[in-house]
């Protein structure tokens, strides 16, 4: 009645560093509470399952963007982040180097003009689509906030996606090489290896195979970048 309210004011004051440190401890405690809740709440999970989930949270992931996305609320350690950066550099270097090699090696010398490229329309369309799609997805990752540990999470998911693309491409090349060599062994046993490989380099067979390989590669790229830019928290 004389200007005094019934309730005392309830301000939170940050007096010194100790209160901030205790906030971090509160967050760590929250993680432990999460696990206790995990153990207590669902009666189905056994002890070993809980241990498995703990192990999965701390695992180093290099080729697994889906699990990086699923465990995005877990803080990534600095050493793991360092390995992600190294693998990201290696993948970017190999992707760009490989595209440069394709573009340069496909050039042949024509008497009277000079070096002319042998990339057909389909090759150029697919390569531009993949480049633009990757850049679009990476830009989207860099602009969405998905977790509190954003820089490390973004590095992790970009590294995982690009590493997965490189790994899958190596597997695809190996598979096609094995199929091609088997086919050569069965059909063209009398010819030398280099002339038999030439059949697969240039010709109707090669062009038909290249549609299939480009299609598989585009599906690979789209699936690898599926989790980039997802999971925005407001």
């Amino acid at each position, binding site marked *: 009645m004389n200007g005094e309210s019934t309730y005392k004011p309830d301000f939170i004051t940050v007096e010194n560093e100790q209160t901030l440190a205790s906030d971090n401890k509160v967050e760590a405690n929250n993680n432990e509470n999460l696990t206790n809740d995990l153990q207590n709440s669902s009666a189905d999970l056994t002890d070993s399952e809980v241990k498995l989930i703990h192990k999965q949270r701390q695992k180093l992931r290099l080729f697994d963007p889906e699990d990086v996305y699923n465990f995005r609320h877990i803080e990534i350690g600095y050493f793991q982040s360092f390995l992600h950066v190294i693998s990201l550099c290696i993948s970017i270097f190999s992707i*760009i180097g490989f*595209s*440069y090699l394709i*573009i*340069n090696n*496909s*050039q*042949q010398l*024509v*008497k*009277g*003009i*000079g*070096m*002319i*490229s*042998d*990339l*057909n*329309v*389909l*090759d150029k369309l697919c390569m*531009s689509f993949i*480049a633009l799609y990757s*850049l679009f997805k*990476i*830009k989207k990752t*860099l602009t969405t906030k998905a977790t509190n540990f954003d820089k490390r999470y973004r590095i992790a998911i970009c590294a995982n996606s690009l590493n997965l693309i490189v790994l899958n491409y190596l597997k695809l090349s190996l598979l096609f090489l094995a199929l091609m060599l088997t086919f050569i062994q069965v059909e063209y046993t009398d010819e030398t290896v280099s002339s038999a490989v030439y059949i697969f380099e*240039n*010709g*109707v067979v090669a*062009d*038909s195979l*290249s*549609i299939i390989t480009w299609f598989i590669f585009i599906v690979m790229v789209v699936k690898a970048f599926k989790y980039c830019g997802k999971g925005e928290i407001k």
Partner: protein
Amino acid sequence: MKYLIGLIFCLMIQVSFAKESLPKDCSHLQTAMEADFVLLSKKEFIELGECLAVNLIKKRTPLNVVESCNEVDEDRRNLLGIFSLSKLEAILIGQCMGTINYIYEHYDNEPVLSYNYQTKIYQCTKGVQAVDILRQSRAKSYSRTVLRDLLCRER
């Protein structure tokens, strides 16, 4: 991000860097030489190939006829059509067609030069038949007389 786009752009535009210059007869096709998209300039590339082939025959430089005419056949049998055509392949197709057309125009219905005064004339093939003849030939080098002997019959 901008630098990545710039780098990829730089890699893509390097493709059309030509070190030699066109022969004088073909200088009207300079724009065709610098163009890069087969979708838009297929006809110009074929014309460029024809012009180059005629030039090579006139200068008596050997040209790889088997490879060029294989490309013509491949283009005919291809599933994808223009999607699997590259600039190099279009120019090679033009070279094959240019060679065949040049031999036809130069020798068809022309009298055979011989020591005895028999009047024989050449009859030369054109089109798909000529392409198949050239593809299956196994000559060591292809000069004008060799091509004439392959494609034309004395009648």
